[in-house]
């Protein structure tokens, strides 16, 4: 009997996500459906507003990967109005973007993803002396004494014993798919707590340049904070040294904790190097521009399309291509004037609500019809995966030296072939690899910024097009951003100095998209097919793969048979997170 598993809510970056999956008699997933169940209509809210304000509105799409929509937004306006930002402003933006990656990826690994692989309760059985030996072997991180790990173990024991706290209770502890020895579990739990403390101070660059985090402030044409070494109200030597210190601490944590932990945990889960990828098609818009924001050839992360895992034939996608960049609504709760079979380029995009789903409260969605608040973006009518794996593949294919070295290091350490990157494990490893690349890049951007200041190039804002009277009557622009979760694009149409149309295609829209007009599954939906479940009432494997994409999620699972009758209820407890 085919069994339908429902996972709801899976909260994602913009809100709430639901997954329904069908499992066959051998407990393997045969079909999966991904549904967004919350909508705010921010694209509708933006119409008629001042394009210079749009960054603040779009930023509120997500408070976890905060900043990413602001970047895409100000770039879309700058593209539309042909505004070139000063070099120092670009370096400051690159620093902010890189910090976002490091902070977000570390938090994802420890607070969202780690407990998919780490059994907290098992850590209570660990011998702290052995954990200490492992720690000393894998890195030079100073917090490594047996007494230290013993203290953490006691803390965890108190929490678990009390039964009152909490964040560690009611999960899948003891699931047969947890494979780590107790000592490694204790190591990871310890770093879970350390990372939570570390991350508080890993947002300093945002706070200095944007005034706060989450949701720092931005400005079209540059950055808000001026540079003046003789002012207490601008970027000066004191602020610069705070930034340098913050960069050093971030790099140390990545080098001595995050990467060694990944390499210590992965060998126990090599099975996940063979499934969980799904589409084999990858897309990036590119990131970390050089001096000229629009010169794609100088990006650190290339703008790339990879089809069928073919790294030898990487194409450069053009986001302005009306025929190839399109969104579909055949299975989405929207209506297009031209009908459900039509695809629309975002500059022509429409956001017309058309809810045809069941009336709440409901048990199951009708997946044969419309079933999600997400549209289905497609590149040349093909579903694409976006995110760390796409970026690392793009950098690898282009021959980026450090990326190649890191990929080869991971492959040789784990003794797996290159094909293993196309998997759940590959996606999780790619996230760590790019964190290292971008963390190191921060040093370069910092040094370049200091060099610019020394040379007297301290301009941070280009106000030539600030006044709306200087704008053309009609303009349209594209704003790119490689958000931590993947390729993000904002398409803006400005008419009579106001926003005429604004369309946003976020990473999770690509990855969590429902089926399209041709019935093609999105990345989450495809990645789950073929996943074997050891204990289907505790579908840990589903969460490992879905979490490897990094949606912000907490899941509810209950199983119902195909008639819609409930046969049991379980909880996942996998998404212990503070997001």
């Amino acid at each position: 009997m085919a069994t339908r598993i429902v996972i709801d809510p899976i909260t994602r970056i913009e809100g709430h996500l639901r997954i329904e999956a069908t499992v066959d008699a051998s407990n393997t997933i045969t079909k999966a459906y991904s549904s967004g169940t919350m909508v705010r209509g921010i694209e509708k809210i933006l119409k008629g507003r001042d394009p210079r304000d749009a960054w603040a509105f779009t930023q509120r799409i997500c408070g976890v990967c905060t900043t990413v929509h602001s970047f895409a937004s100000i770039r879309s306006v700058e593209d539309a109005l042909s505004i070139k930002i000063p070099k120092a402003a670009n370096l400051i933006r690159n620093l902010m973007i890189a910090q976002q990656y490091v902070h977000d990826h570390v938090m994802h690994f420890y607070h969202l993803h780690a407990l998919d692989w780490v059994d907290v309760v098992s850590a209570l059985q660990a011998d702290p002396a052995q954990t200490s030996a492992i720690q000393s072997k894998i890195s030079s991180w100073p917090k490594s004494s047996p007494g230290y790990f013993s203290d953490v173990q006691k803390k965890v024991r108190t929490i678990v014993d009390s039964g009152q706290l909490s964040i560690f209770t009611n999960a899948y502890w003891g699931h047969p798919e947890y494979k780590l020895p107790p000592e490694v579990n204790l190591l990871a739990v310890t770093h879970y707590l350390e990372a939570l403390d570390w991350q508080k101070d890993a947002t300093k660059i945002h706070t200095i340049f944007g005034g706060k985090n989450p949701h720092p402030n931005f400005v079209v044409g540059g950055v808000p904070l001026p540079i003046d070494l003789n002012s207490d109200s601008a970027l000066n030597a004191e602020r610069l040294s705070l930034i340098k210190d913050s960069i050093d601490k971030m790099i140390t944590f990545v080098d001595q904790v995050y990467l060694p932990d990944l390499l210590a945990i992965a060998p126990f889960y090599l099975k996940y190097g063979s499934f969980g990828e799904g589409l084999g098609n990858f897309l990036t818009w590119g990131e970390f521009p050089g001096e000229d924001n629009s010169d794609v050839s100088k990006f650190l992360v290339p703008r790339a399309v990879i089809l069928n895992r073919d790294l030898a034939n990487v194409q450069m996608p053009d986001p302005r291509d009306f025929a190839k960049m399109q969104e579909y609504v055949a299975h989405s709760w929207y209506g297009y004037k031209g009908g459900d079979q039509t695809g629309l380029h975002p500059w022509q995009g429409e956001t017309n609500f058309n809810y045809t789903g069941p009336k709440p409260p409901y048990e199951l969605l009708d997946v044969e019809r419309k079933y999600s608040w997400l549209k289905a973006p497609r590149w040349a009518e093909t579903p694409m995966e976006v995110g760390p794996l796409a970026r690392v593949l793009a950098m690898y294919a282009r021959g980026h030296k450090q990326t190649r070295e890191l990929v080869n290091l991971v492959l040789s350490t784990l003794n797996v072939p290159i094909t293993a990157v196309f998997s759940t494990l590959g996606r999780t490893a790619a996230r760590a690899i790019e964190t290292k690349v971008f963390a190191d890049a921060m040093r370069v951007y910092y040094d370049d910024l200091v060099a610019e200041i020394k040379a007297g190039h301290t301009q941070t804002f280009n106000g030539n097009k600030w006044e709306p009277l200087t704008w053309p009557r009609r303009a349209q622009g594209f704003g790119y951003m490689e958000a931590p979760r993947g390729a993000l694009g904002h398409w803006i149409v400005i008419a009579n100095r106001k926003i005429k149309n604004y369309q946003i295609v976020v990473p999770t829209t690509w990855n969590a998209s429902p089926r399209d007009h041709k019935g093609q599954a999105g990345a989450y939906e495809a990645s789950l097919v073929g996943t074997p479940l050891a204990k289907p009432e505790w579908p840990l494997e589903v969460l490992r793969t879905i979490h490897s994409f990094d949606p912000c999620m907490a899941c509810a699972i209950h199983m119902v048979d195909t008639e819609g009758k409930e046969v049991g209820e379980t909880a996942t407890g996998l998404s212990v997170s503070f997001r």
Partner: protein
Amino acid sequence: MAGKSIYEEMKENGFTRRGFIKFCSAVAGAIGLNLGSPTAAKSESGKVVRGLHPANLVSRALSSKPRLPVIWLEFQDCCGCSEALTRSQSPTLVDLVLSQITVEYHETLSAAAGFQAEDAKTAAMKKYAGQYVLVVEGSIPPKDGGVYCTIGGKSSLSLLKEAAAGAAAIIATGNCAAFGGIPKAKPNPTGAVGVMDVIRDKPVVNIPGCPAIPEAFTGTVAHFLVFGSLPELDHLHRPKLFYGNTIHDRCLRRPFYEAGKYAASFDDEGARAGWCLNKLGCKGPITYNACASLKWGGGLSFPIQSGHPCLGCSEPNFWDGGGFYQGQSAPLDRPALLTMGAALAAGAVIGAGVAGANTVQKKSARRKQESKNKGG
């Protein structure tokens, strides 16, 4: 574990007495008790406690109370207020969660998720009926049967009402839960509202901001823990200890405002020298919040210090205030006028102050007026 005091719990979690007192000082600081001098306050029994050092006062309160049960619901939110909370410097989230409160349900904070968490929520609502604090993050869209935000197939309004019924108090954190926030911005496509708009029979404390300042949230909770009551609120249900003054009242650029020195553009001479951002559209004069005093990131900075005008994010309808770079604009629609009351009057006075300076921008003045008339 029922009956154990917070101090006992903290001791078990590895806190020393010294660490505990240090923590109490942090709590006292966060809730605005003056650390330098003894204070007078009402104890739990209503007796006035005189001459007690604030840290001791906090310490006494925490030593005798069991932990506060909390249920946290997320609706039309961006998770930014939860995310901000992880950056709370004192008390830190870890301190709070490990020692002061017991989070019975949080969609993304508790390990127990999904149906087990739903069960835990139901159980907690029964066990702690009339005692728990309900925290809400995000707005609620009741329009069209609630289809714009469902969780587990249920509408957000039904989930809110269910949880509100047994709550001792409700904290609406962030502008969305407090006032409807960005989903409510015109044309409010999903019919979003704040908690106060649909729950009228319970005390609701608003901690607005986009996101809320984490210490304003933890400080309000600490106040509840220490004094067993909610702090005094203003007419918009905001705790006066964090929302009693405007950003402008405490702004470090205020002396330049008084001297009539304004930055006219980003990165001009005035901007570099730290002059007032009023002409760039700063909403500090009409915004009641603690950014300028508490600051962000452990006192590191706040938006105006970092060179950007205040957006006014702790005020109702700030998204519809006529443009973030439009000097002195304030929400023009009727409900906003009513709610902003005195704040708007303050803005008008300042508007007169800079009127002269603004005339230099004659070129764009007409355009601005047009856009204002449009109802921007």
